[in-house]
């Protein structure tokens, strides 16, 4: 524990060199201990992996039980269908599985990144829909944009749309201290209706009650992937996913901004004391998170997958499905890529379950159980780690002085006003 504290202290100094240094402040004890705590979690990627694996196993066991209850005779085949997921031998199914994964990887990335700053981005759905409508609008109306860069312009449009939508909860959180959970929920509904209005007023296809087709020239480049893997409509979006996961990983763990983000997430007061502009950090974090969600919609609606933006008044499920992806990856940007693929994989497994007379919602129940177990597997792991280190919960809150009331990550500590 002690050497980890030193390590975080070093980071602090390194950070201080780049920002105007504040002598004496970097000795601030408050974030150190908690930073050390998360560092010990972060560095143990392997045990995180195993605890996620444990959660997945429990989820599958519950899944088998549910299959047995519903129809015992097909339960074996059902389980095989779930495990095989998209890997049924046909490239189409594999392509489907990837196509299902891509949007939720991006929204998962969005949730995970916001969580770094201590923000629960339940508004990925709204950011997703606005990003999608921006991209589709540019794709259809951007006739003056040359073909070669149109896909990039659409991508930027999606990022801008998502970032605008993400910025609203960020600004309200930073300047008005409004809880981001509630503003994100509201922005989901406002985004849904805004997207509907934009579609209906500009790019409506009244025959099918949805947005017009995205022209071929605006679609995401395939680089020949769809011909190399015949039967699929693969394009470069999976590569883009990897690139963005890596970018987010670098931002969050290898840059000053990422460090500030973690510090603000752990303790906004202490980070402000250390000279970090926590307002700016929160807003930028939410904007980046929003941009990632917008990108997810870009990859879904411009990927030539035959999915169109419709005007049904339903909040996009991809945003909510990003939450389990992020949680299962324990908010690690690279982990998100794999958990997203996994969830996409078993979702297609759920589609195949229907062949054996089961409803595909069984998969959602399995995912729910996995998330539920993931909620405390992390705690069990920390507990084990602490027992091993011989530091079992001693004076963790002492540095805070006489009032030992640490704020949860859910709340901004300034909001915690004690009253009757």
């Amino acid at each position: 524990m002690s050497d980890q504290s030193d390590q975080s202290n070093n980071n602090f100094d390194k950070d201080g060199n780049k920002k105007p240094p504040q002598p004496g402040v970097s000795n601030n004890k408050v974030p150190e201990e908690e930073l050390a705590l998360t560092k010990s979690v972060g560095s143990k990627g392997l045990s995180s992996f195993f605890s996620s694996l444990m959660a997945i196993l429990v989820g599958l066991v519950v899944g088998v039980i549910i299959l047995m209850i519903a129809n015992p005779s097909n339960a074996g085949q059902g389980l095989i269908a779930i495990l095989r997921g998209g890997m049924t031998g046909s490239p189409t199914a594999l392509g489907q599985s990837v196509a299902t994964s891509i949007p939720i990887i991006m929204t998962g990335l969005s949730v995970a990144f916001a969580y770094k700053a201590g923000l629960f981005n339940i508004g990925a759905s709204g950011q997703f829909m606005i990003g999608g409508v921006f991209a589709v609008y540019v794709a259809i109306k951007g006739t003056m944009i040359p073909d070669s860069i149109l896909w990039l312009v659409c991508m930027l449009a999606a990022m801008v749309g998502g970032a605008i939508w993400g910025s609203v909860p960020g600004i309200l959180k930073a300047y008005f201290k409004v809880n981001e959970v509630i503003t994100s929920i509201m922005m989901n509904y406002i985004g849904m209706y805004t997207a509907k209005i934009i579609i209906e007023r500009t790019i409506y296809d009244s025959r099918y009650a949805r947005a017009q087709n995205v022209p071929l020239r605006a679609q995401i480049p395939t680089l020949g992937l769809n011909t190399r893997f015949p039967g699929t409509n693969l394009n470069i979006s999976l590569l883009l996913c990897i690139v963005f996961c890596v970018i987010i990983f670098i931002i969050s763990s290898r840059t000053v901004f990422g460090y500030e983000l973690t510090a603000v997430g752990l303790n906004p007061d202490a980070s402000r004391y250390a000279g970090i502009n926590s307002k700016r950090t929160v807003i930028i974090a939410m904007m980046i998170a929003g941009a990632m969600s917008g990108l997810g919609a870009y990859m879904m609606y411009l990927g030539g997958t035959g999915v169109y933006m419709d005007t049904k008044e339903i909040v996009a499920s991809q945003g909510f499905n990003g939450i389990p992806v992020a949680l299962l990856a324990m908010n690690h940007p690279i982990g998100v890529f794999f958990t997203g693929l996994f969830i996409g994989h078993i979702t297609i497994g759920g589609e195949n379950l229907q062949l054996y007379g089961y409803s595909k919602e069984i998969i959602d129940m399995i995912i729910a159980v996995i998330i539920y177990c993931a909620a405390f597997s992390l705690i069990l792991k920390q507990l084990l780690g602490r027992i091993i280190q011989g530091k079992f919960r001693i004076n963790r809150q002492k540095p805070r002085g006489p009032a030992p009331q640490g704020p949860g990550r859910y709340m901004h500590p300034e909001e915690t006003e004690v009253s009757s």
Partner: protein
Amino acid sequence: MTTIAFVVQQTMIFSIPLLIVAMGGMYSERSGVINVGLDGGMIMGAFTGTVFLNQMQGHMSGQGLLLLALLVSGLTGFLFTIFHAFASINLKANQVISGTAMNMFAPAFAVFAGRLLFGTQQVPFRDTFYIREVPLLGDIPILGPLLFQKAYITTYVGFLIFFFAWFVIQKTSFGLRLRACGEHPGAADTVGIDVQHMRWAGTLISGFLSGIGGLAFVVPTSTESNATVYGYGFLALAVMIFGQWRSFKILGAAFFFGLMKTVASAYSAIPGIKSLPIPATVYKMIPYIATLIVLIFMSKRSQAPAAEGIPYEKTGR
């Protein structure tokens, strides 16, 4: 007058479920446990409640049946929330994650069980609960049309629950202890309050009320349950935060939101609004935008329970 009565009657339909569920959320959060799984509890309650209605409507009908069904819904929410309470309190899990899992599980379960029992995910029931006019009370000059005509018994149940819940949390020693566990569990512990018990109580009450709220939402708005409450659990969470975790502010917030929702959905029936040249979709955004604006003006000082979301560990002191 008829317009006002209409608006009030409509507002009740939207506000009462929000009020019940938000009060439930308040119990959980003021005991120190964040419950974002309210939506899941509502869906579970709505599902079992309508299954009960569906199965029993051949034997009985009217208000007695609905009251029994509400009880079934409440018990379902209660049982469902045991998982959340166990994870959050005993296993010290991340409460937001656990609640999210609840929200994922419930709609999937409702679809699955609906298909298993009825072949479809829609569970229909006969609406024999509509109250055209409450005897005697409905004849009161102004109050009658506002509160005692064209209503559902859920409205009165909702008000009863509200006052009872307010009384218990604010005026009884149980309530005081519960609030202490949400503000300063260490201090509560030193005076002999069992923090874990109180948090279990708070969380289970929230589950009970979310189940009731689920059925109270479905019965007046539909004649079948469809494995969803259209995000009302999240709205209830918003109402609770909007209401600053305080009973009467939650009452105000629920009715504010319900009124806005009424304006949004029934604007064409309200003279004066109908003639404005604004697209219909814009009206539907009103409740959400209005809530945002109100929050900006009044949320400078939040009164969230200080210890919410933080598992309590005795060994730490």
